[in-house]
Structures are given as C-alpha cells and as structure tokens.
C-alpha cells in the first residue's frame, strides 16, 4: 500500500494541488480576452488563521465590485469600464473593458462573520478568518 514516504508525500502534494485547482474555478466571463487565465488575476494566501485573496482590479472602486460568500465559496463579480474620453481620438488601446464573475472555493471552512474586504489603489484584498475548528491549535508537549 502507501507505506513508502515518497508515495505519501507525493499523494499529499497532489491532494493539495487538486484542492487549490478547484479553488480557482472560473464560472463565467464575458468581454474581450486580454489574458488567457481567469479574470481578475488572483493570489491566494494562508496566514495560518485566515485565507487572503488578493486580486488586481485597476480602475475599480468598491461600488464596482460585488462580493458574496456562500458556505465556503467566495463569489467576486463586477465590471470594469474603460473611460475612453469624449472628444478624443484613439492612438492605442491596451486596456479593455469587461465583466467578470468568478468563484473561489476555499480550502477550509471560514467564519462568515469575520470577512473583510479592502479595495485600494486598484488592488482588492479579501481576508477570511478560518472557522474556529480548522484553525491550527498548539499542542503542548509535556516534559516527562
């Protein structure tokens, strides 16, 4: 069976990879594709007591995004307008407008009462405190 240490390690790594792949699951996306991966590009972190999702949303402010939490799935949706100004001709347009709707399945239970989101300078940071039962607990080692 899986008596071998290598097998165990590889199996655990594979499990983690699959969990994380599932975490980044794109539901729906409209608009011009200027990146091949899901929008918005996001990073997921584990601080030990919380999960943190960091996403780049230049030009967006809090009223442009909607964040929902259902069980342990975080939904992020919104749209980005590109303010092509009136009366100007266009020489170059690399920034595209779009709508996005993305969900993140979190790797462990979170406390729905303890979720915070800050959108500043075009970067969205969502902090989700883990549910008490999944927070790491220190185990005291007694000296014998």
């Amino acid at each position, binding site marked *: 069976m899986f008596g071998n240490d290598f097998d165990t390690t590889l199996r655990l790594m594979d499990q983690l990879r699959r969990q994380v792949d599932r975490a980044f699951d794109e539901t729906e996306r409209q608009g011009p594709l200027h990146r091949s991966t899901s929008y918005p590009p996001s*990073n997921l*972190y584990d*601080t030990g007591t919380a999960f943190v999702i960091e996403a*780049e949303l230049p030009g*967006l402010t809090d009223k442009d995004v909607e964040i929902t939490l259902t069980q342990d799935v975080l939904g992020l949706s919104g749209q980005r307008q590109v303010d092509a100004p009136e009366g*100007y001709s*266009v*020489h170059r347009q690399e*920034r595209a407008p779009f709508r996005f709707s993305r969900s993140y399945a979190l790797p462990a239970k979170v406390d729905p009462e303890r979720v915070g989101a800050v959108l500043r300078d075009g970067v969205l940071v969502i902090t989700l405190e883990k549910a008490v039962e999944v927070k790491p607990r220190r185990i005291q080692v007694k000296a014998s």
Partner: protein
Amino acid sequence: MATKSNLRPSSQRLENVEERPTGTPRVDVYENEQELLLVCDLPGVTRDALGIHVDQDELVLEGRRSAGISATPLASEFRATDFRREFRLPRGIDREKIEAELKAGVLALHLPKAASLRPRRIEVKSG
C-alpha cells in the same frame, strides 16, 4: 560588411542593483486638439511610489508597488511586479504643463500640446 549600426553595443540599458521584478503596464493613448492623454494601469502604486521623468523627447513611467501580502501563498496567478515603460514623445509637447492624476491604481497623464502646434481657427469671411 560592418556598418555603424552593427557596431553599437548590444545592451545600452543600465542594470538595477536590486532585483525587483518589473513588468510593463498597459497603456491607452488618446489625443484631442489640446493634448495627448496617456492612461496607464498601475495597480498597487501610490502617488509617492510613482515616478514620471521627461528628458528631451523620452518619457519614462515608473511605479513601485506597495509591499504585498506576507503569508504562505497557496496559489499565484500574478506576481506583484514594479512597473516601467518608456515612450518617445512627439515634438510639440509643452513639457512645463504636463499633469498627472493617479486614482484607484490608474494614472492619467496629460501632455498638452504647445500653443503653436494647436490647430488655429481660420475665420472665413463672407464676401
């Protein structure tokens, strides 16, 4: 046969002493009668971390990002890079009057055209 251009050194760019990953930000360029307008995505860059340099006809935009999240990354789709992009400005920009606004990680750079280059209305007299 070697020509002058073949003999130019392969790299004329100076290297940074510190290793910070740098990316190229996306830029829109617009124009109207009064100005050229550059709009640039610089997420994570604040005013004091933004550098705009104009030297002769070269425009350099540089943005340093605020420190990222210091925790164990589980998944990473973007690297929080600094930004840098260089442009050659057309002639006739009034350099003294360049204005910049930075809001929600987006830079709007106004490059006004020198008065002499702006189109002048010619009165058509009926006769």
